[in-house]
């Protein structure tokens, strides 16, 4: 089999206007996302990881959106499921792993990564996202914010207040609604009577657009355009139509509330498979590439889990770290007392 040189293929021509380098990176990252997901679920089963939210089915959506960002100046404000997006933006895997091991030391990214930490309270990160965008604008950085929220999250007051203020302040922000059909056991249809989440934008005075979230190219192009609009001071709501193929989390059993029939078509329109097919046709991707990507991802993920496990040293001391800039004296005393107590190993 003749294998084109990477260089050649990187310039072999766009698909749907998306450059080959992005397509190949997208494919690699989707593979890596699946590898990570699978490993994380396995580690949870072995008791090595806490409750974990798999993203199977949403890889194209998360990766496509993140690749549209300019890592130097654009920000991601995540909820908890958008791991592939954060990784594409530069967040280290081991931090993510440590976080899901229940170690707060993992919940952050180095200063070069323009992203907030995970945030668990549904939609409560959105007001902060608007504030960041507002600040970027005031500083005239040209940067924009990509704020993630789920279909369920759109029902919260925080979603509304944020989307509305973004319009008023003309903030450079894209609200990315991952409409994956479910909020735990609650189907999209019980989340709102609206026909689409993109339609919400009308009520805030800007544009909304719905995109096929299993089509990485479409997501990439849509988010790229949305970011351009946002940079000009007009927020955008992007609704990504996708599906949570797996459980809500590693402690959820979706069979209780949905039939496998519903899942099947979504498995069949897997984002990676769809793009890989087209990329193969265009000579941008091959079995060898796939294998290599999978091997590399496995190596990286395994190494990250090892690093995380080595770094995992939960300690009483961490309880009070970074709660305050100036830890109050009484709290410091409480924590010292607790450290002494815990050091004696009296815990049941």
């Amino acid at each position, binding site marked *: 089999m003749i294998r084109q040189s990477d260089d050649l293929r990187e310039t072999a021509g766009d698909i749907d206007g998306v450059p080959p380098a992005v397509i190949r990176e997208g494919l690699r990252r989707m593979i890596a996302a699946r590898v990570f997901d699978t490993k994380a679920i396995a580690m949870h089963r072995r008791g090595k990881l*806490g409750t974990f939210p798999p993203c199977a089915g949403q890889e194209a959506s998360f990766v496509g959106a993140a690749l549209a960002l300019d890592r130097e100046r654009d920000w991601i404000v995540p909820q908890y499921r958008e791991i592939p997006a954060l990784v594409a933006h530069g967040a280290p895997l081991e931090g993510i792993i440590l976080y899901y091991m229940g170690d707060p030391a993992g919940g952050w990214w180095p200063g070069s990564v323009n992203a907030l930490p995970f945030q668990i309270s549904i939609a409560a990160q959105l007001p902060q996202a608007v504030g960041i965008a507002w600040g970027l604008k005031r500083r005239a950085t040209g940067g924009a914010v990509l704020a993630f929220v789920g279909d369920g999250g759109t029902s919260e007051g925080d979603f509304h207040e944020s989307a509305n203020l973004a319009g008023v302040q003309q903030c450079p922000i894209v609200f990315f609604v991952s409409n994956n059909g479910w909020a735990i056991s609650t189907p999209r249809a019980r*989340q709102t009577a609206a026909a689409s989440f993109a339609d919400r934008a009308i009520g805030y005075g800007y544009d909304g657009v719905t995109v096929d979230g299993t089509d990485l190219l479409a997501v990439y192009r849509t988010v790229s355009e949305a970011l351009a609009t946002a940079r000009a001071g007009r927020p955008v709501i992007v609704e990504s139509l996708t599906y949570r193929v797996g459980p809500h989390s590693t402690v959820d059993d979706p069979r209780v509330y949905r039939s496998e029939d519903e899942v099947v078509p979504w498995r069949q329109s897997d984002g990676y498979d769809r793009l890989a097919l087209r990329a193969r046709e265009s000579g941008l991707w091959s079995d060898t590439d796939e294998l290599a990507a999978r091997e590399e991802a496995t190596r990286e993920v395994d190494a990250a889990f090892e690093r995380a496990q080595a770094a995992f040293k939960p300690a009483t001391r961490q309880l009070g770290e970074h709660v305050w800039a100036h830890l109050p004296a009484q709290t410091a005393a409480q924590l010292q007392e607790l450290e002494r107590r815990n050091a004696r190993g*009296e815990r049941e």
Partner: protein
Amino acid sequence: MSEQNLVSAIRDALQIELARDERQMIIGLDVGKMGGVFRATDGLQAEFGEDRVVDLPIAEGVMVGAAIGLCVSGFRPIVEMQFLGFAHQAFHQIGQQLTRLRQRSQGRFSAPLTIRAPYGGGGKTPEFHSDCYEALYAQCPGLRVVAPSSPTEAKGLLLAALRHPDPVLFLEPIAGYRTWVDDVPEGDYVLPLGEARIAYGNENAAAVAVVSYGLSTQTALRAAASLAAEGIDVVVVDLRSLSPIDVGTLCRVVEKAGRCVVVTDAPVTGSIASEVTATLMERVFWSLEAPIVRVGAPDVPHPLGALEQFYIPTAEAVADAVRSTLEAH
């Protein structure tokens, strides 16, 4: 009597009340087909229909607010707050609307609803799922706050809450859902609301009174057992009701013992333990032989799972406090 864990006792109470009073309905997140994230409403939608057991969009504020409105229309909704930590989103509806409907309408309207909320550590949950926020709600006049400490208690207190004319926040210790097991009375079983109970020991013979509620009562009971082995007799007062507090029982028992340790799973500052201590200071000061000691979590947020073991107050900490109280003079 039948052996039941906490979830099952709660489900039992819900089932009884939905069957008995057709004004009762259950609303919340994932309470329908799924039966709630802890399965406390398992099977209830199938039994009582989609009109009476209703899955709602993720919006805690309107969940509580709509429940208030449903009361005005003659219903008695039971709101399942998925976790107490998410009631913050509904804080204005709980602390300012739910509590004031009656006064604002000079008694014409009332909101006799119950908000059930899992809370407390032990589950290694993500952030906000375990924080002990109960003292925030005990500061809301017009709202009762109740925390059971066993499956039997849960059944009896929940049925009482569901029938009470005032709104009740009913706190369910996550750590107890599966692990607390009890012989729970079958059928209708109602405990009084607003009365503390002696959960352990003899109030006339105890050297120290240990005051606790919810999860911390189990901690106190473990401490009591280990202290008994050392020959130290304590009496454990389980508050049950955090608002209002049963000041009568509290004072009676502490007056007799003369020494007292108050246990909470919450950060100690501003906690229920502080309120209990202040009340005792005012009322039984002259009977105290030693300062009352609060045992609680440090004043930092409930941590992520891996640190939880270092954070939650232990039976040993309670026992130490009892010992130190006995040594104090």
